[in-house]
């Protein structure tokens, strides 16, 4: 997972990648909770595949999808790339595999590889941009990258300050550094 998230959102000199931002931790926690078990979704059958417009009809929960998807990905890599699992490939090789999965060229045995990839494309950015209390966006790196102030609630002094950069650092539900007394 850490390898995957670092390719979906690679590190660069200004901003960490998915791994250091905690995206894998985020996804791990989400899959452990109600999102992973599709709690709250309508789970009665029959499960019939319909049109794209009718929405997902698979009985697979996200947790099951990830388990099968990760296993399928490693099996694919081992088969096609000299016996190595995904995490041991080079970054370029990893990108190449992911592109093939995205295009539908790489197929996994018992799960829809494209469906798995679509879930990744949703979940990894969520891990990058959600509040750090959920495990990702460590140190609010995602928010700092774009200039999103987080949970701040009062912008009345700024609505009419047009075309002016908002200068204050982001805040998460867990606060920010400035909430703590500096030892000076």
């Amino acid at each position, binding site marked *: 997972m850490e390898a995957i998230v670092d390719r979906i959102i690679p590190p660069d000199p200004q901003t960490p990648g998915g791994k250091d931002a905690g995206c894998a931790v985020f996804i791990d926690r989400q899959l452990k909770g109600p999102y992973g078990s599709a709690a709250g979704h309508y789970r009665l059958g*029959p499960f019939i595949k319909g049109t*794209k*417009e009718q929405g997902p009809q698979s009985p697979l929960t996200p947790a099951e999808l990830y388990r099968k998807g990760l296993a399928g990905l490693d099996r694919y890599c081992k088969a096609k790339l000299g016996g190595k699992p995904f995490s041991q490939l080079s970054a370029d090789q990893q990108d190449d595999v992911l592109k093939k999965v995205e295009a539908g060229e790489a197929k996994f045995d018992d799960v829809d590889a494209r469906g798995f990839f679509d879930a990744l494309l949703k979940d990894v950015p969520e891990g990058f*941009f959600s509040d750090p209390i959920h495990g990702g966006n460590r140190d609010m790196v995602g928010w700092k990258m774009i200039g999103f102030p987080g949970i701040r609630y009062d912008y009345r002094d700024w609505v009419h300050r047009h075309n002016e950069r908002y200068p204050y650092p982001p805040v998460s539900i867990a606060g920010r550094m400035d909430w703590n007394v500096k030892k000076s």
Partner: protein
Amino acid sequence: MAQKLPAKDVAIIGLGWTGSILAHELAAAGLDVIAIERGPWRNTATDYPPGYAPDELRFRIRHELFLRPAQTTFTFRNKMNQTALPIRSWGAFMPPNGVGGGGVHWNAETWRFLPSDFVLRTHLTQRYGAAFLPQDMTIQDWGVTFDELEPHYDRFEYLCGTSGQAGNVKGQIIDGGNPFEGPRSRPYPNPPQDQPFGATLFAKAARDLGYKPFPQPSGNMSRAYQNPLGVRLGPCTYCGFCEWFGCGNYSKASPQTTILPVLVRMKNFSARDNSEVTRINLDASGKRATGVTFVDMDGNEWEQPADLVILSAYTIFNVQLLLLSKIGKPYDPVANSGVIGRNFTHQTISDVTSFFDPQKFIFNPFIASGAIGMCIDEFNGDNFDHGPVGFVGGGYMGQVQTNGRPIETAPVPPGTPRWGAQWKKAVKENYQSAQKPGTGVHGSMYSYRDVYVDLDPIYKDRFGRPLARITMDFHDNEIKQNKFLTDKFAEIFQAMGAKQVVKEYRKAPYDITKYQTTHLCGGAIMGTDPQTSAINRYLQCWDVPNLFVMGASGFPQNAGYNPTGTVAALAYWSADAIRDKYLKNPGQLINA
């Protein structure tokens, strides 16, 4: 075996906007009222305080305030020859759950319909001829006029402290307001909200193109306000966590912030939450409701007898309950007979995303409210000549961007890879300098013979009852309308100085996975003819006179505006009729 509770005068099914309005009106008239709400009670400080309400993942992505499809959902198909499949997780619309209903998490965009919207078939036929309308378009006149509803629109706007700029007061057109609006008796109770940079720039470009932009009427307070019931709201702080979220500082109009504090003090009002009504009970004649049956959290069944039943459970739950309770004749699209389920509609929404030079434009998209924005109404309703364009209907359009929440709103130009270093770079570069209104083009959806609701033959809810089945697709009229409007909308962003403007037309087939407002309408429509409507002009059920059905389920077709203002105005109008006419002489109010 349901246990029978002591009888009440009124049973109200669902404690959202209309449930709260009716509960207050009828309790104030001295009746003994009970409201039964499927979801939980919700309060500002305990359910969405500023300390954790602004959690995009929890409330926008995981939909914590909304109904769980596991509790109930619908099935969907585009065409009658398909098998409908369950909506296993929400997409195209997001039904509410809990006290306050949609009023807790709505944008608070508070519009009135146009006078012509209420007499749509007559008006369009007169202007363009009957042959101009598609043959399978089933639009109807409502049976009530704008002028009749005007005092009730006013009442809701003053209840909510709606912040706006009047455009037409008693016939006098006022600069800065909507020149197309129907005449109102007086201005809004609060001045418009402040507008951020993007909306202001949009308005300037629109003006330069010859349009008359005006601020969107907003149920987010532009200043502290005390409503006529004595309830107070605080000033909106433009936090950018409005729609999908509860408001943490009492500045968004909701039942909680406008009516419930007074309602819960009335000794003749009581409520049950976490109790789902499963049936409206009828007597042996089938023409009189005797009360409702509901199920509590433990699965116990209860019967609540009542002399008067108000069905205010939200559009499609209203229709489903009528069908399951065997009230009114179910609609048959093939035979074109029956009324329950016919004229079902949604909204025709599209968006335009534009990219500006990051060196020159800083939009601070996170500074917003749910009903912020500058709009134009030149292309709504029949405000323009449709003869040359070959479709009817329209909608308002505006830079109504409500947020810069990064999971939802991090636009990248077309052609950008969906992941990787280039994607990351594009997100970073464009976040502050892009404009993504959201429901930028807010078009009408008129009604058609083959777009309707009935009961599904296969799928059941957790009680074993059939789910409601939605058969819906876009028709050519709406697709044409949307292309026309979207093109006009894009021109304005071009004129704003965007370096790239990306149009996302709404296209058929209707897709249940793409969010396009929760403005479902119809299915239990109002009208003057019991053959083609379920309720009369006072929202009274033709078949069961002691049942009144609130909500957008009564709209014969949907107009190019958010429905809540009209839903609430109709509720007040109906409440007046109940109090002043029905209670004095219970029975069918209209002889049709």
